[in-house]
């Protein structure tokens, strides 16, 4: 009896060094400007070539400005970092979808939308949210820069094999409940350490009924449970998605449907959820596990970490988040920066205006998403509601590139991390679904979509 994860992993096993160390071959390697320069330095210092430039794809996303992308980048360090990426890609013959390129965007948005991410592959990237690609029946996980160098040099990586965890979700999600609410709900119940040492498979009727975009949101946040990654078995939905994409024309329906876990007994650990229990979920603290239903009260825990967290957020025991005034709304990131997300937001805000005191920032995950927004006529909807539409990038998800939230102010964000300072020093992040974020923008406060 084997899980889907084991089947893919075992196919890629090159060598078992000891029980903590295996060599795994890599089908696709995504790189970006922030975690790759030091890896290229290692290669260049040793005069080592990139082994498979054809299996490596680069994009610029973390450190890019989200406006005036056609002009010179003002911040000198950012400019140098982007130039370094270009220089390294040129030198080693790696395809780079740089700033302004039609394929440019957040690495975890463009990989799937170009059809580079395919079932049965092992994919790595120097970024923890590489788990996103797991939605395609792919084993995908984040690595550090030293491992980026390993993969560049050898198309393989040294790593430990994780155990397997099945998260089974059945039933229908209620109205206005998205896959983001589901994953925030799951993490709030299990905690940020529950997945440590495991690779997750998400299964069950709820997952089967989801679009690829929604599945990506779920897999994206599996890392927030401490898991190495999360995947979903490919199926006909995967096939329908991939058949229209640029690099996945050769993927067949059979290829999508053939690889599955042998049964529930194959997993080291199993947890079940009922989709009916999921309500609009938001976070109140400074890790993604500190989530509650919008209408629920915060219940204090007696420990330093929790106390520090609530103090940072300016929130108190017994408080409900519903009705909390907010100053910013950020819609974007590799969690919820796809066309489906913006469509959902547009449906809520159409004919409405954002609250006067709210700044609503909408950052598409890629140039392709931006194009879709325009061709579907949504740009006008957003602009007449008072939203700022930017060019693609990670933007305020990590506040590295000029887009950030001022200290002490609240931001309802569709991204994946609410750590202290994540969206700017002192910024207070409330993670939510795109629908909840849209309602917050209109009402200027946390609002229950129901």
């Amino acid at each position, binding site marked *: 009896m084997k899980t889907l994860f084991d089947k893919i992993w075992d196919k890629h096993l090159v060598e078992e060094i000891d029980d903590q160390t295996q060599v795994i071959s890599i089908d696709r390697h995504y790189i970006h400007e922030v975690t790759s320069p030091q890896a290229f330095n290692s290669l260049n210092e040793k005069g080592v070539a990139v082994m498979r430039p054809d299996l490596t794809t680069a994009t610029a996303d973390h450190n890019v400005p989200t406006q005036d992308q056609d002009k010179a980048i003002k911040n000198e360090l950012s400019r140098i970092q982007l130039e370094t990426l270009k220089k390294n890609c040129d030198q080693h013959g790696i395809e780079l979808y740089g700033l302004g390129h039609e394929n440019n965007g957040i690495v975890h948005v463009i990989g799937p939308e170009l059809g580079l991410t395919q079932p049965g592959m092992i994919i790595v990237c*120097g970024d*923890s949210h590489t788990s996103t690609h797991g939605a395609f029946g792919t084993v995908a996980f984040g690595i550090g*820069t030293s491992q980026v160098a390993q993969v560049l040099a050898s198309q393989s990586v040294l790593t430990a094999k994780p155990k397997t965890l099945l998260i089974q979700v059945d039933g229908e999600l209620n109205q206005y409940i998205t896959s983001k609410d589901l994953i925030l709900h799951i993490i709030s119940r299990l905690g940020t350490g529950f997945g440590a040492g495991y690779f997750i498979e998400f299964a069950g009727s709820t997952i089967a009924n989801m679009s690829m975009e929604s599945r990506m949101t779920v897999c994206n946040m599996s890392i927030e449970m401490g898991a190495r990654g999360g995947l979903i078995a490919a199926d006909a939905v995967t096939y329908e998605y991939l058949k229209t994409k640029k690099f996945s024309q050769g993927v067949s329906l059979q290829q999508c449907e053939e690889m599955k876990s042998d049964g529930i007994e194959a997993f080291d650990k199993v947890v079940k959820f009922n989709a009916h229990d999921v309500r609009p979920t938001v976070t109140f603290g400074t890790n993604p596990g500190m989530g509650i239903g919008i209408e629920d009260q915060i219940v204090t825990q007696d420990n330093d970490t929790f106390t520090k967290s609530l103090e940072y957020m300016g929130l108190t025991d017994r408080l409900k988040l519903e009705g909390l005034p907010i100053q910013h709304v950020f819609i974007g990131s590799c969690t919820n920066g796809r066309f489906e997300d913006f469509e959902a937001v547009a449906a809520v805000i159409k004919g409405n205006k954002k609250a006067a005191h709210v700044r609503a920032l909408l950052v598409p995950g890629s140039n392709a998403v931006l194009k879709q927004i325009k061709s579907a006529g949504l740009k006008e909807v957003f602009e007449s509601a008072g939203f700022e539409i930017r060019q693609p990038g990670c933007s305020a998800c990590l506040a590295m590139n000029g887009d950030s939230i001022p200290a002490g102010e609240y931001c309802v964000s569709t991204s994946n991390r609410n*750590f202290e300072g994540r969206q700017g020093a002192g910024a207070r992040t409330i993670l939510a679904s795109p629908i909840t974020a849209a309602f917050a923008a209109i009402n200027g406060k946390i609002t229950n979509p129901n």
Partner: protein
Amino acid sequence: MEKVTIIRSSVVPVLLDDIDTDQIIPARFLKATSREGFGENLFRDWRFNDSGESEIKFPLNDKKWSGEILLAGENFGCGSSREHAAWAIKDYGFKAVISSHFADIFKGNALNNGLLPIELSKAFIEDIKEEVLLNPETKLEINLEQQEVILRVSGEREKFVISPYNSGNSDVD
């Protein structure tokens, strides 16, 4: 890379759980293209307030605490995969971090840079904490060959596991 076998040092306690890599090194300091100099901004937003003044209460700024070992709460290094976090800790001068659990990617990053992620039981960490809070000079010995940590005042000891293959291997050779 320098091979470490025994570390004898007092510890610097930052006893919070779930210390994520955004705290260890905030994203705005990730613009560099080399591995050096990140120690300056280690725990930046905890070490300095909004106006750039030192937060004297934070253990790294408190003269009471010094040493080559960082003692942390559980689930250390969660969040972003940025190896810059391991570089920053190492660059600041720490040789080892002790926690009851390390996030997977951080652990690998630390090992790839000769920074020891030492996993000990919560009970032993609690004992270390008690001794250290009582006497900040308390020394720990980390013996990599024996794979054990010794609390020198009481002689209490515990084994840890680090694959010899992993410790001190550099990235491409």
